[in-house]
């Protein structure tokens, strides 16, 4: 993550790692399981990142994460804080067992959401605001695998962001956040998380 986020001026310092064996929390957890797990395990404040790596998320999911929000205006600030963080498939860790997705790209992608980034194919359309980042070209579809090139909006400027961390490409295909995605992350972090 540090190498992936370094060009954006963001770094991560590992504070601790804990290991828990729990069948209910780790395999296709329900909402209640998730709350119970995070109530027990979550650490730090809203400006701190909690990364969970679970055995099986169900449905072939590799990960999911919570967008930043205003704690003050949240309907339930305590629950918002408890749930905050990213859940990733443990098999996506570097060197683990999931083919094509075991270089650590999943946690990098999910953490992008934690910083307030959307998918580069947000909206699944060639018009409209897309991901609200002006240096990522319009993209109508998620990328699968690692194609040489892709242009899902041929009438629009630029090619699909197949190497962007906020696409759905294979880990080996991931290379970058754009400059304005980096700025967006800083702005979102400053507004929603810094000092919270």
């Amino acid at each position, binding site marked *: *993550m*540090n*190498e*992936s986020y370094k060009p954006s*001026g963001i*770094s*991560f*310092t*590992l*504070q*601790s*790692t*804990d*290991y*828990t*064996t729990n*069948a209910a*929390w*780790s395999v296709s957890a329900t909402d209640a399981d998730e709350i119970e797990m995070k109530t027990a395990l979550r*650490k730090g404040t809203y400006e*701190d990142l*909690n*990364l*969970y*790596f*679970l*055995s*099986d*998320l169900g449905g072939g*999911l*590799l990960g999911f*994460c919570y*967008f930043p*929000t*205003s704690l003050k205006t949240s309907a339930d600030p305590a629950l918002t804080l408890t749930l905050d963080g990213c859940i990733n*498939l*443990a098999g996506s*860790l*570097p*060197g683990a067992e*999931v*083919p094509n*997705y075991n*270089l*650590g*790209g*999943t946690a990098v992608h*999910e953490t992008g*959401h934690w910083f307030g980034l959307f998918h580069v194919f947000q909206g699944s359309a060639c018009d409209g*605001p897309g991901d*609200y980042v*002006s240096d990522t070209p319009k993209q109508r579809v*998620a990328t*699968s695998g690692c194609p040489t090139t892709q242009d899902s909006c041929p009438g629009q400027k630029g090619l699909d962001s197949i190497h962007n961390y906020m696409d*759905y490409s294979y880990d080996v295909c991931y290379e970058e956040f754009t400059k304005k995605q980096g*700025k*967006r992350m*800083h*702005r*979102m972090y400053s507004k929603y998380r810094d000092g919270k």
Partner: protein
Amino acid sequence: MRFFTLALLSPLALVSAQVVERHCGAPEPPESLKAEAASIATTIDTETTTLDTGRSSSAGNPYNKINVKTYVHIVTSPEDTGRYTQAMVNEQVTQSSSTSLTKHLT
């Protein structure tokens, strides 16, 4: 029949069979966050930043470097206990770029 048995016994086989392409379960961004994203996009597109000009950052600069304290929780089934190591976690947090890992693995 043998394959069926292996699939039942091997969590690795199950995972490999299930994840054939990336699926991220992040929810649809709420309208309030989209509005903030639109506002930020306008700001970014019109500003001349210290990053653009290469000047050093100053107090209040939204682009000061961010360091995020990170807590990792490995939560596994009994069958997976011990499978995911501290070395993997360290690689995830400290490195984890596709380029560096590709170099490392090849």
